[in-house]
């Protein structure tokens, strides 16, 4: 199909690294939004669960199945379902939901980036104003939020070490640039020149203190 139309990359560069930190465009997958109609949430969830092994959970936690499907929140009463690329996911879901939910293809509307490596949480925190601590944002947690001025869906892939950004395609290049700049800005507290004292490393007075100092001025 479409042999003469070649898909274009949403960004100029698919990957950048700085030290052990990497930012990479992830391969496209099928992405479909599901919005159950009135009173249909349970039925739709059960149907999707039976067919794809993932359900529409009320929490902000991505559900994954061994077959490569995932479901996570896309908004108020809406979910995104992700599946293998070219898997006709939209058509499958339309058939499964049988008019009990709005099913809309979003495969091209969003782009995924992975930010990965030691300090990934600190870099993400320069853009995303949500609590990324392990206690608040564990593996597979999802947050609908802003990265700077850009709306994103953030997923934790590995606590403090790997985050995924799902971003509207038209904003992908801007977000890529913004994350890259944040990576160049360094990991707070990691620069030895700037944080000697923070690590308990002080200038040691080169001359022994005057023994007379061993008196309390007021004693």
């Amino acid at each position, binding site marked *: 199909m479409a042999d003469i139309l070649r898909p274009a990359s949403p960004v100029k560069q698919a990957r950048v690294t700085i030290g052990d930190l990497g930012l990479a465009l992830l391969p496209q997958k099928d992405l479909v939004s599901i919005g159950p109609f009135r009173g249909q949430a349970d039925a739709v969830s059960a149907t999707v669960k039976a067919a794809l092994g993932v359900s*529409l*959970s*009320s929490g902000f936690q991505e559900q994954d199945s061994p077959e490569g499907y995932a479901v996570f929140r896309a908004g108020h*009463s809406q979910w995104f379902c992700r599946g293998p690329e070219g898997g006709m996911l939209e058509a499958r879901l339309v058939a499964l939901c049988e008019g009990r939910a709005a099913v809309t293809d979003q495969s091209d509307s969003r782009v995924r980036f992975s930010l990965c490596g030691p300090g990934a949480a600190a870099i993400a925190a320069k853009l995303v104003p949500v609590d990324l601590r392990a206690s608040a944002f564990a593996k597979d947690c999802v947050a609908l*939020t802003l990265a700077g001025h850009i709306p994103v869906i953030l997923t934790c892939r590995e606590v403090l070490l790997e985050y995924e950004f799902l971003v509207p395609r038209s904003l992908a290049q801007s977000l890529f640039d913004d994350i890259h700049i944040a990576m160049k800005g360094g990991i707070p507290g990691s620069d030895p020149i700037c944080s000697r004292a923070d690590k308990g490393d002080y200038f040691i007075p080169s001359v022994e203190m005057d023994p007379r100092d061993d008196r309390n001025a007021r004693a």
Partner: protein
Amino acid sequence: MRLTCPHCGSRGLEEFSYRGDATVQRPALEAPEEDWVAYVYLRDNPCGAHRELWYHGAGCRAWLVVERDTLTHVVHNVRAVCREETP
């Protein structure tokens, strides 16, 4: 300022936009014009407890009713205008 979205949890002000008084009710089409004028233009500006509409536009896109004290800025309660149907 932070609001605790009933869906997304505690979030910063920048994710929300403000609409104002949550207590006004859209009149029926045939209601007197004064009712419509009041609905569209007239707002109280209470000092103290207030119920306000906020939109979590950068999050779940839910409209929220926020009970807030305009004097102390204490947020007493946040709930979604429309109960979400989840499995």
